[in-house]
């Protein structure tokens, strides 16, 4: 292991949160910052040749190399965990920008009650309304303290959104920076039907720009072209905010910040309760030690937790006793694209953009009375025009057609191809004592390190929540003109079909070392010079897409580092 010259800050993972923090430190301090990113460099110019569904959306060309490293999965501690041999239910990105390159750009704020979820539910419905086996808890930071950072994150990315306040959405102190996106036919049908049924549809907030925009850092991006290649692709014109086009232009000018590609972090080295640097392996297999005064983990939910466990930091969670914090409260999303509608009219669904669509939040969070419903939580519900590509979507036929291959199936599938659409139900996945992350005892990565092991399933609360949403949406689907509707409720957790890349938990934030791994600034309890950023800090999943909240919390951490910590290093809480 070759020891390198020390840096002030070493950041593990060059995605949205790691690069955001690097950019802020580069702009506002004299700190020397090294970002370790295991994947390759990525820029807009690389994406022109990238509009190929097979390579990028089917073979996952931008994702973490699954042949080298994956996670294992089991439903419960009674089962044997087996490796996820191909990524499908979630897609960890790799390379500069991480998953922030291939995302869709859907950027809602979480509702205010999400941040004090357990307290809110107990106050309104009593302790007994909480799901069996749950481990729901408050975040420890109120919405009011996060709101200014939501606004800053929206301005940095140029979020396009509704011009006026929408009922049931999170309150805002200023409008969105750019006007809403255009609405394609399918979402327009949803918007109309939802409004007629008394809901409050809005055009989804979008990190794909409705018009050209210059952000507060002076970075200019062009408007979205609705080509329909967002999710699993990098944007070839730079209209979708990605770390490569929004943060890297600033970082590239910062002499004190270096992004080291091909560098896979293996351990955080620590001594006497302080992190002293990061051991990593480069693309050639050489091993290095990068000493630093401060270490930041921002390498996505699974890897943040895994690095802490591999490094022996904090106490690993034990589901049998409930003791220990690291790995606790793993959640995904109780979501489904399971309400499929078959129309008589063509929808021209090849046109669209990752976040162009119509959303209702009337059934989100605690925006409706849950008394007597038998579940808590809500869903972010939307009709999107993501861009509909044929390899992934061809073959869906109305329930009246039973064949899955051959002449009858082909005829029906050809006819249904552009007449089929589904509503997105992003239901909240509650946290449970039995769902957690630890290290797998059997399976290892290409370096011989244990893989992270996910023990994860959905429970009754989540299933009832999704069933309730589907029952509300079926009449809307009919009102939209669907001839046939097929709906599938939430089943057991399954790694074979795409859900979202929204995994949360493992290094959750809270108010004390007894209920969390990090404090409200992402600072590790008991190791004040170790910070952990990203959705691994979310105590549970609050329905909608997490990225804007990840960015807001990262900016809040940056402020605390610049304003307080670097002046007087020590515990912030």
């Amino acid at each position, binding site marked *: 292991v070759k020891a390198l010259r020390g840096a002030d800050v070493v950041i593990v993972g060059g995605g949205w949160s790691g690069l955001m923090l690097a950019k802020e430190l580069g702009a506002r301090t004299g700190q020397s910052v090294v970002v370790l990113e295991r994947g390759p460099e990525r820029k807009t110019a690389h994406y022109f040749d990238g*509009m190929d569904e*097979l390579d990028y959306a089917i073979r996952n060309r931008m994702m973490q190399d*699954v042949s080298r490293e994956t996670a294992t999965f089991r439903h419960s501690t009674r089962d044997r965990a087996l490796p996820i041999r191909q990524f499908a239910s979630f897609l960890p990105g790799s390379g500069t920008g991480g998953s922030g390159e291939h995302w869709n750009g859907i950027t809602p704020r979480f509702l205010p009650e999400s941040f004090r979820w357990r307290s809110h539910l107990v106050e309104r419905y009593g302790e007994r309304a909480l799901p069996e086996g749950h481990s729901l808890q408050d975040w420890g930071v109120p919405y009011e303290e996060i709101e200014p950072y939501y606004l800053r994150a929206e301005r940095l990315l140029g979020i396009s959104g509704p011009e006026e306040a929408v009922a049931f959405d999170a309150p805002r102190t200023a409008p969105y920076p750019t006007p809403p996106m255009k609405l394609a036919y399918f979402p327009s049908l949803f918007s109309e039907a939802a409004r007629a049924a008394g809901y409050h549809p809005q055009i989804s907030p979008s990190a794909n720009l409705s018009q050209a925009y210059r952000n507060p850092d002076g970075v200019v991006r062009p408007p979205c072209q609705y080509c329909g290649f967002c999710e699993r692709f990098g944007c070839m014109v730079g209209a979708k905010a990605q770390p490569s086009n929004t943060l890297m232009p600033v970082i590239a000018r910062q002499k004190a910040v270096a992004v080291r590609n091909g560098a896979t972090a293996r351990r955080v080295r620590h001594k006497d309760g302080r992190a002293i640097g990061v051991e990593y392996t480069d693309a050639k297999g050489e091993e290095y030690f990068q000493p630093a005064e401060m270490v930041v983990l921002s390498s996505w939910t699974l890897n943040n937790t895994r690095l802490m466990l591999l490094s022996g930091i904090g106490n690993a969670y034990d589901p049998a006793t409930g003791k220990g914090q690291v790995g606790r409260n793993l959640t995904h999303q109780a979501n489904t694209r399971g309400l499929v509608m078959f129309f008589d009219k063509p929808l021209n669904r090849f046109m669209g953009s990752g976040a162009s669509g119509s959303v209702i939040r009337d059934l989100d969070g605690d925006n409706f009375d849950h008394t007597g419903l038998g579940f808590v939580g809500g869903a972010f519900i939307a009709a999107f025009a993501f861009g509909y590509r044929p390899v992934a979507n061809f073959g869906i036929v109305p329930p009246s057609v039973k064949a899955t291959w051959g002449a009858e199936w082909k005829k029906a599938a050809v006819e249904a191809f552009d007449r089929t659409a589904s509503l997105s139900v992003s239901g909240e996945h509650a946290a449970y004592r039995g769902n957690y992350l630890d290290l797998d005892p059997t399976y290892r990565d290409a370096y011989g390190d244990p893989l992270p092991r996910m023990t994860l399933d959905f429970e009754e609360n989540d299933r009832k929540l999704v069933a309730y949403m589907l029952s509300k949406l079926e009449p809307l689907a009919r009102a939209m003109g669907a001839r046939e509707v097929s709906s599938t409720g939430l089943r057991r957790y399954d790694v074979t079909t795409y859900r979202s890349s929204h995994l949360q938990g493992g290094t959750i934030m809270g108010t004390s070392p007894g209920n969390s791994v990090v404090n409200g600034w992402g600072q590790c309890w008991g190791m004040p010079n170790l910070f952990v950023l990203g959705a691994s800090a979310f105590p549970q999943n609050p329905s909608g897409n997490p990225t804007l909240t990840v960015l807001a919390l990262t900016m809040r951490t940056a402020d605390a580092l610049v304003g307080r910590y670097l002046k007087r290093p020590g515990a912030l809480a």
Partner: protein
Amino acid sequence: MRRRQFLTLSAATVGGTLIYTLDRLPLREAHAQTGQKIRIPLRHFREREALIVAAAASRIFPSDESGPGAPEAGVVVYIDRQLASQYGRDRYRYAKPPFEEGVTEQGYQGKETPREVYRDGIAMLGAFDTLSPTAQDAKLRDIEGSYFFRLLRQHTIEGMFSDPMHGGNADLIGWQLIGFPGPQMSWSEHVDRHYGEAFRPKPMSLEQVVGRKVTPWEEAE
């Protein structure tokens, strides 16, 4: 090294449409005249295997009165190239042991690479290409539950609808069939129009759109 293998088809079976060779040169001289032959160099299959796979793909996605299918799109050429590439050797899968049986929600846990799955699957199909269509369908129904069939069905869809640089979707025939225009740069002026009416721009391949040769992943590694 084994003798170079070719798949020889009569022009009639491919309907006289475009097929790409391995060098991605379009083969069009054989135009629907019966008796003429097209010779496609194979990268992975032996000719016998290619004929069996082509026949099976043609039952999954037949060419019939509802439009062209696997034969015209060159699905077997697509599959041949994929299996010849890193994909065929399981480059895109975590392939470390131990291999244990799991529940469906844990995904495919088999040890076999796509090449091996096809090798065994082709053996299961026997003299498939010489059977009558009815007998072929019966045979496929027998193996419907197998992982081989799942892969073959998935690859048939991929060969119908992926960009022609991968060897299938010849002449953009798959995209024409379903009204998908391919990866074009802007629908900005159209996205909020054409409500309820079919908008069907002429399809373009990625190379046509970007105006240069693009190297697919199977040829990049």
